[in-house]
């Protein structure tokens, strides 16, 4: 469905991506893991057209994305839910959600009816949003904002949903909630590309994983395989450190177990 080959991208004179290759197939959850500054967000921005690649191939269902404007890429069905939620602070939750359906207005006369239908679906996934609909979005808590941001993404009826660090800055309980939601959305047929620093949980729900370091894909493979990869364990999963506190060890244990992987 989505294919990147040897993508390189710059911010001015700084090279942010050297060579990024990845592939997402329909129906999968694919995750990119890596530290801060590894280029995860830049990879997303390159896919969604905010950053232009300077080298490499970028294809989505046979369309070359490399020179398309962001709004054209959205129309093809790729939705990028940005890092840090980025809701429109002065607009209500409802307005934020409806703006998510912008790309559907142009070609579709029935968008109003469809948007109402999609809104119900989003409220089903995030019941809290229905109660918050009239609130200005900046007044929401971090977790509520994340729900709204994902809901806004779903309003476009994307074929591919790209979530950039959806668990960032959320309380552990909410992190669980977010991951559970991603699995649920995926079960309903959505293809998901996920950027995460929370490598353990991301790999637990994904079918494929890619590891990004300083703008280069250094490792890729089945998510399950990566979870057991010694190199990754040391660098991202933190299991090289012995967890001495038994309570904490239990929390870490549970956090991997609680989340069902697709197909289980």
């Amino acid at each position, binding site marked *: 469905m989505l294919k990147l080959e040897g993508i390189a991208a710059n911010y001015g004179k700084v090279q942010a991506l050297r060579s990024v290759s990845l592939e997402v197939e329909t129906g999968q959850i694919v995750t990119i893991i890596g530290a801060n500054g590894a280029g995860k967000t830049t990879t997303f921005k390159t896919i*969604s*057209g*905010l950053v232009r690649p300077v080298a490499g191939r970028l294809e989505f269902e046979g369309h070359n994305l490399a020179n398309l404007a*962001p*709004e054209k890429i*959205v*129309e093809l069905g790729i*939705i*990028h*839910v*940005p890092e*840090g939620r*980025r*809701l*429109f*602070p*002065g*607009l209500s939750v409802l*307005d934020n959600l*409806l*703006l*998510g359906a*912008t*790309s559907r*207005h142009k070609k579709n006369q029935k968008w109003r009816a469809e948007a109402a239908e999609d809104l119900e679906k989003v409220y089903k996934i995030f019941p809290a949003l229905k109660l918050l609909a009239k609130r*200005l979005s*900046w007044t*929401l*808590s*971090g977790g509520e*904002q994340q729900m709204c941001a994902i809901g*806004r993404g779903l309003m*476009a009826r994307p074929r591919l949903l790209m979530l950039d660090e959806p668990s960032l*800055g959320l309380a552990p309980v909410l992190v669980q909630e977010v991951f559970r939601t991603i699995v649920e959305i995926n079960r309903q047929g959505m293809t998901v590309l996920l950027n995460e620093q929370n490598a353990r949980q991301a790999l637990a729900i994904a079918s494929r994983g890619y590891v990004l370091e300083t703008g280069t894909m250094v490792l890729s493979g089945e998510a399950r395989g990566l979870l057991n990869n010694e190199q990754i364990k040391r660098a991202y999963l933190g299991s090289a450190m012995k967890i001495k506190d038994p309570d904490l060890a239990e929390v870490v244990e549970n956090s991997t177990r609680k989340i069902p992987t697709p197909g289980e």
Partner: protein
Amino acid sequence: MEEIIQLLVSGLAYGSIYALVALGFVLIYNAVGVVNFAQGEFVMVPSYIAVVFLNFWGLPFILAYLGTILVACLFGLLFQQVAYYPLRHRTYLPVIISTIGASIFLQNAALVVFGAEPKKPESIFRPGDTFEISGIFIVPQYVLILVVTLLLVAFQYYLFERTKLGKQLQATAQDKTTAQLMGIQVNHMIIFTFMYSAVLGAVAGILVSPLLLVSKTMGGGLALKAFSATIIGGFGSVPGAILGGLFLGIAEKMAARYISSAYEQAFAFIILIVVLLIKPEGLFGEKISEKA
């Protein structure tokens, strides 16, 4: 009592003009993050166009005014394409300098085309016209200004709060990058904002030129007052621009009558300085704090 009401009416009328120009400032600032120093020329250029239509071509009022607004739309579009668009990826400084350049160019172009002598446009009411309601003398042009401004603000409220386009404009103003990720055509929104801002200027110009006469410098003074109004109201805030403009208009007339008419033009800036000292975020500014 009668006197105070008369002062209120004239204050509100001038305040409405400041408010319209201030709205133009704020909408462009919110859309592209730059203060448009040619905002005064958004008033001056359409005012001259109205003079051409009314005085030179002798068109009827309604046709001339509609034509002026149409030309203002095109002017806004052209301005956006020439003064803003080529610099859109640069920082705010080149854009500001470009708007200052455009302002100087337009003023001198007006001088070349129309000469230095101020033009008096044909107007619906004659300058001396007043009517009396229970001892209060009212200038009909002031009433016209108030009614038109009220209608325009109501229209704008409807546009921004009740339509799809308005929500997209607000989204663009609040977060351009994310607006793009929604599939909003940010460039179109910015073009529309410049066009609408020019229409606000045109309406202000049409309304005020029977009182001020049309000259190359008419916009500069208005723009300075309007800019003060945006700061007094709370910079970047739409309701702040409207309330700030009205407040400034009334305060100016009151101060001119009861303190000193010689300093009428200075009061706006005295008020500005006082507001900046006491309440720098503005009198009516709304605060949107951002959460992580």
